[in-house]
């Protein structure tokens, strides 16, 4: 007879000395790992709960301004520097790592309407209520020297916004019309306008760098081509857009922050329908900024909160609020896509984490593996009712919560009336307009 018994040599399974690692033989046969799905479900539930436990996004508050913060600008070469302009004409440069102010400049009399940095990071531009455009050096003045702008341009009308070209020494200001300036010259190289109303903000496209977008008070968004020095096309919405922001990864996508509590993501090739309508704010949306990954953006609203939206979803994934933070005027996403800065009415700039439960700093490889595994588990089971309920849960301040309930009731009533109108009229006589098309009034080429 031929016989062989299963006999293991303990030397192959037990470590030799205390200083060695333990030996862990693996066998991935599914019969040795029963209840895969329920165990993964329990792990996903635990991961979701822990994510909520560790969700502490607030990092720091930068104190120093003596009036509300009106605009923010990122330093293109240094992650730890941010520039802010206040409503009393003061411009401050902050160091985010030490969380202190490194330089203060009394730039304008009146509001600082816009601030932008040059692409090389050596200087920055500010525009104010005193009809001037000033260019400042990024390095502070030496000892004994006074704070003087490099260059001052006096204009005839108030400028309400400024943005710098991403590659060349050209910047654009907006006010009564959109002016394109060369840094060396004191008068604009071209002025573009379409319509008779004032323009509130202008933004250069980071990828197709000759394109500009602007928002005007007559509820339209106009796109300009710098090479031809003409406006390209415009889209008229229901209500005024406060600002737009171009997607840094997709050349033709931009998001507009509108007064009717929504944000609209447009594809500039087809402006008649927005790609997505983002609805979650309960008051006017004042500012929007994209993450450098191009997959998410953050919006600041008059209802004392900031929300983070994914580009392809219509609902926000995160809402940040504090008792002390009043109307948020401006918001920026840092260039390493990890932090969000917002400047608000009560003179503070706050620094938040983009992912609320993320552990900052260097992670060991085991931590990284555990984090990746938990992310994948949460993604796999995200539609299960218990897990969805926990992952979605956010505490909201009472005013915002009650506003949401009120607006939901109003929306329901409007929709119910529409449905009734549809039901009780001749089929085809009442057109069914999708939510996306409802808000766009016209597109003009």
């Amino acid at each position: 007879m031929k016989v062989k018994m299963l006999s293991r040599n303990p030397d192959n399974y037990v470590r030799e000395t205390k200083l060695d690692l333990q030996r862990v033989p693996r066998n991935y046969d599914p019969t040795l790992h029963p209840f895969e799905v329920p165990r993964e479900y329990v792990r996903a539930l635990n991961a979701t709960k822990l994510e909520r436990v560790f969700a502490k996004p607030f990092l720091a508050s930068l104190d120093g301004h003596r009036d509300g913060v009106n605009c923010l600008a990122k330093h293109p070469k240094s992650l730890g520097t941010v520039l802010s302009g206040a409503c009393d004409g003061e411009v401050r440069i902050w160091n985010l790592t030490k969380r202190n102010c490194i330089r203060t400049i009394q730039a304008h009399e009146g509001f600082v309407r816009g601030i932008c940095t040059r692409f090389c990071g050596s200087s920055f531009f500010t525009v104010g209520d005193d009809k001037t455009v000033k260019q400042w050096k990024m390095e502070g003045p030496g000892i004994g020297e006074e704070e003087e702008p490099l260059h001052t341009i006096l204009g005839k009308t108030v400028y309400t916004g400024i943005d710098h070209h991403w590659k060349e020494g050209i910047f654009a200001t907006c006010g009564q019309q959109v002016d394109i300036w060369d840094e060396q010259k004191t008068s604009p190289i071209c002025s573009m306008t379409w319509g008779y109303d004032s323009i509130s903000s202008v933004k250069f496209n980071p990828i197709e760098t000759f394109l500009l977008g602007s928002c005007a008070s007559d509820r339209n968004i106009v796109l300009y081509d710098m090479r031809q020095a003409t406006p390209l096309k415009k889209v008229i919405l229901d209500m005024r857009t406060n600002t737009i922001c171009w997607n840094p990864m997709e050349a033709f996508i931009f998001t507009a922050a509108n007064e009717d509590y929504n944000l609209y993501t447009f594809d500039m090739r087809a402006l008649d329908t927005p790609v997505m309508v983002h609805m979650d704010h309960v008051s006017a949306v004042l500012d929007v900024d994209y993450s450098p990954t191009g997959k998410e953006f953050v919006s600041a609203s008059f209802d004392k909160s900031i929300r983070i939206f994914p580009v392809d979803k219509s609902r926000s994934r995160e809402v940040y609020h504090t008792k002390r933070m009043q109307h948020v005027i401006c918001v920026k996403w840092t260039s390493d896509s990890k932090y969000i800065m917002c400047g608000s009415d009560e003179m503070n700039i706050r620094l938040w984490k983009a992912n609320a439960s993320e552990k900052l700093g260097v992670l060991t490889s085991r931590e990284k593996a555990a984090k990746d595994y938990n992310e994948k588990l949460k993604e796999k089971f995200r539609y299960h009712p218990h897990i969805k309920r926990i992952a979605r849960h956010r505490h909201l301040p009472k005013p915002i919560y009650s506003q949401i309930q009120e607006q939901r009731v109003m929306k329901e009533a409007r929709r119910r009336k529409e449905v009734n109108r549809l039901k009780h009229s001749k089929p085809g006589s009442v057109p069914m307009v999708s939510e996306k098309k409802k808000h766009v009034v016209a597109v003009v080429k």
Partner: protein
Amino acid sequence: MRRLGSIPACQRIASSLPQAQDPFPGPAPVSVEVAQKFRRIDKSKKLPHSKSKTRSRLEVAEAEEEEISVKAARSELLLAEEPGFLEGEEGEDTAKIRQADIVEAVDIASAAKHFDLNLRQFGPYRLNYSQTGRHLAFGGRRGHVAALDWVTKKLMCEINVMEAVRDIRFLHSEALLAVAQNRWLHIYDNQGIELHCIRRCDRVTRLEFLPFHFLLATSSETGFLTYLDVSVGKIVAALNARAGRLDVMTQNPYNAVIHLGHSNGTVSLWSPAMKEPLAKILCHRGGVRAVAVDSTGTCMATSGLDHQLKIFDLRGKFQPLSARTLPQGAGHLAFSQRGLLAAGMGDVVNIWAGQGKASPPSLEKPYLTHRLSGHVHGLQFCPFEDVLGVGHSGGITSMLVPGAAEPNFDGLESNPYRSRKQRQEWEVKALLEKVPAELICLDPRALAEVDVVSLEQAKKERIERLGYDPESKAPFQPKPKLKGRSSTASLVKRKRKVMDEEHRDKVRQSLEQQPQKQEKAAKPVGARPSALDRFVR
């Protein structure tokens, strides 16, 4: 144009050698069955009303799974151990081979795994191996309880509980022991210290521990099946089986369902979430005396008072696969990890083997037999060793059964060579991922399936709420064309064409469904017309 002299020297030398052909071109072949083992998507199930985006994502997932299953099949090369085997010479019956012969023919370490404990004083014994197979606990009818590491023969504790012991089980690790005594259920430490006396579980006949749910299932003489959660110490469910005395119980390791055998020949399947049994299977003409389920949950072996030993298929329609008449009824059954079936009939143990791991054992000829010094009272295969432990009225016997156990264990699940630190870490992780008792059902993968019923329900509610169906196709609007192709007549013609095509598709579908309906509605041949025919739809 290049001349010969301008070709570099190395290329000239290489081109003069004969071109060597790779004798095994392409990647190494992988056996289909091994790759199939790692696939989990059931391709035959189709999602009703699925959108094209969902379908494309599913296709991507299926392609990924194919690739990964091939890689996993290749990684099987790294498994160090081979399963044991016992083959007779030409014409030799393996069943005639005695344990003493096997012990002589095998190496010293394996020979030491065969031992006999002669304990005649304290009554017939029941035994249990821990999850890792390293520790053994046994309890005698007259109160003798002991726990030891049977590989190193190191005794952990030995006590007499001064009461009849009906069943004994290790809890999640070798640290805790549950003993079903005459009156109540007691929990002991592995040093013999009594930790708990659970008075709600009285007159317990059988115990089963569900390791991934941390549930101890007890069946009692009063007819109650009680689930006790040992991590929090609460009774999760106490179900009245309504079938009298319960003394035949086993668990299905694949889906944690408890199988109870009754005296009317039925086996009922229970889950703590439901007050009624999940299923009832009629197995035998007389009472059922033993039930066992194999480790993959594919087949169930039952034996009854009608001297039959039957194997049922649990994954399909609960149909019997094979049956065998035994000279004496088998009072105890056990499956091994590789699908061997052991039956204890009186003082004889018979073991049947099948072809592979997942195939049910063939009951034609036994693989091994052994006669013990007393009547069998308990039977269990040791988890990762080729050993069958038998508790009988003369003590404990450990039999050698080559080829019974899974040779390669997974170090992170149950590791017989784990250290104290590893055991502590494993215990914490196991408690964190303890599966709630509500999730026990016949299909453990139910959470990963699309809940089609809820989906349809949600769809209906949405149509009601919105007043229209948002997913229905919008009526065809012909695109306006230039150069006179957009006149009213041509628009109407294009619309008509699309409508006719849709109508034709519908008619074709209904024609395909008609013969199926006719088959269903056809009455059985030879049925006499009865007065109740008017109610037949």
